């Protein structure tokens, strides 16, 4: 789950990291009040879960509270990459001497969290790492041992930073590392952390992303930030009608798991496929043989007849989908006969002939003898494991798109 900047700042503040005296609001008039309280020039920043807000005009500078109000009114109306802003953040315009970067991410290869620090803050860290590798310090830390400040100090020193900056940044990075672990984050980034002319350090922006799997035990934090359960995991894209239909079918029955996606798919080949790896392999195989899938799907964990039926109905309900291909890698838990019943039932209930509608059925494995009897009875073309995933996908393309063309 991604956090808005105003929430991310609250998270770092709670961890004891200095932040500016900012204010968050959804109302332009209140932006004026906040700016007046701050006194002096302010920055008005759009609160959206997408990048590139500076370029899009979502960040503006104001000299007076009136100007702050006017900018807030504009920014609250400004959609960025299709996202409506949640509100605006009114921030004192900081008297910055130098900007630094600090962040913590997971390193999957090292299997540990990784701290990153650079004295070239305010820009994309990947760019800095590529162009100025000597300006980036890195260091892994343990998930078992207590964190100690020297670990952060080493990373900062590795970036070539010494003096006051090293001393001041060390406890801040240490707190960031600790909050990263404590809050089940995937990413915790302060960019920039700014050194002001008075010598103090303050976080001017923060980017936080929590792992969905960790949300269950982070309920207290999520609640404290005022995030309601209805926001879910804040997926970045809006689910399509098809995706919502499949989720509903999946939620209605605990037996097995089905998933469906069609964002980015616009063909006519309805895919009833599984499991995780099989679905990836089959989607590639269809596309590489010139096929245009109408959707992506996953069947796993031995779903009920009703669930397989629901998925097939959702796929067949999509515009332009007349036929489906039912294909999986060899199954050992999911049952061939149960999936066969489900997809045939979907055809029958929609008044379609299963033999016409199911272009190919390739699911070998558990209970295949029983499944093949059912498929025989309805005259459906099927194949066993001697027909590869590639070949089955090719037949699906030929039968579905060949006829359409």
């Amino acid at each position, binding site marked *: 789950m991604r956090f808005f900047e105003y929430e991310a700042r609250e998270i770092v503040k709670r961890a004891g990291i200095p932040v500016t005296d900012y204010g968050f609001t959804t109302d332009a008039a209140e932006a004026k009040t906040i700016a007046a309280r701050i006194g002096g020039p302010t920055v008005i920043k759009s609160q959206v879960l997408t990048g590139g807000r500076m370029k899009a005009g979502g960040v503006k500078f104001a000299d007076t509270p009136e100007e702050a109000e006017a900018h807030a009114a504009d920014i609250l109306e400004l959609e960025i990459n299709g996202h409506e802003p949640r509100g605006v953040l009114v921030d004192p315009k900081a008297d910055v001497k130098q900007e630094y970067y600090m962040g913590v991410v997971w390193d999957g290869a090292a299997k540990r969290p990784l701290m990153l620090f650079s004295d070239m803050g305010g820009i994309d860290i990947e760019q800095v790492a590529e162009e100025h590798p000597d300006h980036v310090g890195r260091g892994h830390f343990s998930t078992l041992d207590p964190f100690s400040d020297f670990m952060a100090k080493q990373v900062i020193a590795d970036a070539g930073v010494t003096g006051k900056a090293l001393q001041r940044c060390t406890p801040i990075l240490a707190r960031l590392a600790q909050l990263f672990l404590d809050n089940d984050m995937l990413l915790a980034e302060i960019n920039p952390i700014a050194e002001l002319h008075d010598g103090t350090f303050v976080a001017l922006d923060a980017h936080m992303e929590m792992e969905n799997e960790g949300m269950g035990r982070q309920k207290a934090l999520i609640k404290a930030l005022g995030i309601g359960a209805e926001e879910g995991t804040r997926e970045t894209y809006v689910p399509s009608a098809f995706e919502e239909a499949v989720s509903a079918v999946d939620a209605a029955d605990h037996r097995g798991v089905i998933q469906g996606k069609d964002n980015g798919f616009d063909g006519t080949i309805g895919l009833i496929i599984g499991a995780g790896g099989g679905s990836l392999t089959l989607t590639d195989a269809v596309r590489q043989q010139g096929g245009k899938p109408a959707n992506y799907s996953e069947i796993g964990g031995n779903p*009920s007849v009703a669930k397989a039926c629901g998925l097939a109905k959702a796929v067949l309900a999509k515009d332009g989908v007349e036929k489906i291909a039912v294909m999986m890698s060899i199954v050992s838990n999911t049952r061939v*006969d*149960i999936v066969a*019943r489900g997809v*045939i*039932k979907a055809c029958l209930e929609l008044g379609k002939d299963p033999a016409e509608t199911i272009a190919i059925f390739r699911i070998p494995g558990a209970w295949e003898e*029983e499944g093949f*009897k*059912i498929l025989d*009875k309805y005259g459906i073309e099927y194949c066993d494991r001697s027909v590869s995933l590639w070949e089955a996908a090719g037949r699906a393309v030929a039968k579905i798109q060949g006829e359409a063309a």
Partner: protein
Amino acid sequence: MRKDAIFIGVEVKDEYTSDPALGAKLNEVCPVNIYRGTETGVDIDEAAIDECVLCGLCYDAAPEGAVAVLKLYEDGAALR
């Protein structure tokens, strides 16, 4: 009593349909809740029949010949 769905048919011989104890037992063993125990005996949930996983636990739980699971896709062949 016999009820048929698309793929599966289930039969409880008439002499056993008014046995509440059998109804309760079948209800307990069937993993997909095809059988329902009622106050007066056994009922079959038509909507659940096609979910049958062919486990045969109902045969084991009932007296010999009391229940039958029929594969309609195989000319009504009985599971046992």
